């Protein structure tokens, strides 16, 4: 799959265009771009529309809890050009808020709701940010590393 990665000159071009808000991280199949939250939508819109990238398919959207910050991960894929790109974004643990990409990819709807549900990250601009897997009155966000499992005593 590594052969399907974005060409290195395209990476460079991206970095030059959005520096200093965008930096390249990782190597080989772990190569990704890290974006400042403020410019996320702008960069993604460019990646989706620009002829050299055409990343029109949001394959995966998820979040990782690194204790002091959350990392949002977007896996983009281009059907016409057969190339993929990983976009990452770090947001402060105390804030836990990132812009929603549902405007660009409606397919992000359920995935963002899932992240909100399990990880507790709020997506600004999401049309209906509700819990999706857990009950509406569930107290916490279980995929957070700080989550403690407290089994509720069965009544009865």
């Amino acid at each position, binding site marked *: 799959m590594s052969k399907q990665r974005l060409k290195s000159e395209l990476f460079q071009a991206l970095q030059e265009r959005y520096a200093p808000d965008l930096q390249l991280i990782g190597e080989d199949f772990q190569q990704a771009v890290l974006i400042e939250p403020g410019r996320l939508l702008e960069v993604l819109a460019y990646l989706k529309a620009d002829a050299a990238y055409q990343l029109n398919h949001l394959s995966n959207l998820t979040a990782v809890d690194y204790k002091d910050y959350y990392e949002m991960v977007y896996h983009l894929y281009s059907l016409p050009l*057969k190339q993929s790109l990983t976009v990452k974004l770090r947001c402060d643990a105390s804030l836990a808020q990132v812009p929603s990409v549902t405007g660009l*990819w409606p397919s*992000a709807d359920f995935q963002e709701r899932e992240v909100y549900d399990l990880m507790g990250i709020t997506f600004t601009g999401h049309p209906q940010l509700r819990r*999706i*897997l857990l009950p509406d009155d569930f107290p916490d966000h279980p*995929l957070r590393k700080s989550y403690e499992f407290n089994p509720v005593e069965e009544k009865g």
Partner: protein
Amino acid sequence: MPKTQTYTLNMGPQHPSTHGVLQVVMELDGERVVQAIPQMGYLHRGIEKLAESRTYAQFIPYTDRLDYVSSMGNNLGYCQTIEKLLELDIPERAEYLRVIMAELNRIASHLIFMSSVAIDLGATTGMMFGFRDRERILDLFDMACGARLTYSYIRIGGVREDVPPEFMAATRQFLADFPEMLAEYHELLTGNEILYHRLRGSGVISGPRALEIGLTGASLRASGVDYDIRKAEPYGIYDRFDFCVPLGQTGDNWDRYRVRMEEMKESAGIVTQALDALPDGPVMAKVPKVLKPPPGDVYHRIENPRGELGFYVVSDGSVKPYRLHVRRPSFINLQALNEICQGLLIADVVAVLATLDPLMGEVDC
């Protein structure tokens, strides 16, 4: 002027045709659907959280329980993800066996699809035919790994064990019989006028819209988008096989049905090619007893019967994954339900659900 108002109908979680514990909250105007909102979570087991307290190898049985009618595909997706992280080389024979199993499982899964379309449209006999023939594939898997549903056959570094000698003959026999079975389905179901009129022209979604809303797999290809990961981004040894990707034109229920029926034929072709080319040799790479992948993250996706199955694994260098996320095709495909169903009749919602083919084990994870 009489006053009319819409009403809400909860379809599920206990309902004969919601494919498990899916709840669809429908707003209806008479029998016409104003909106159909899927509600899930009734089968949520927290598999992603569980993964964080299991070793890499221990997680394989959990993948069986995601899309439990195509467990081989799930095993394959997960194991290849970890292998990518470990940069392992897989023995040739194991690669071929993986393809055989994954494609047989695709046929089995599509047979379930066909059966559920049949039963959701009221053709009970069609359902029985699908299940009868799926049984033969399950027998093959039983021969290979002793399990009929949750195989855990594909392991990190290869497959659990070599297939017994009789497996080959039995698989070839199945492949020889398969065209006859397909002809039977086409006679009983595909050629049926009522089925045709039930499926044709209802539940339409255009190609670009299907892609935007995140449909993948056969449901996307039914809308005419040529996107099969086996072709677009070949994983394992899929680039060695000669097969075509069936495409639909209009993206209606009928196309979603036809594409899957055609895919079964293609899968049978792949299995034949793999059986012919199957080399001798070991079926397991040298894998350390304790797996400690280097720190980093990896995303890998495969073409499962229900669409694009992706695994995102973050390793911190310990024996357990730091974070594991599964991109479940059924879950994301369900987003299309509301949009497709608007303006259709109740009976069409059932047909759309059947042709979108979500599986609740995977939706709820």
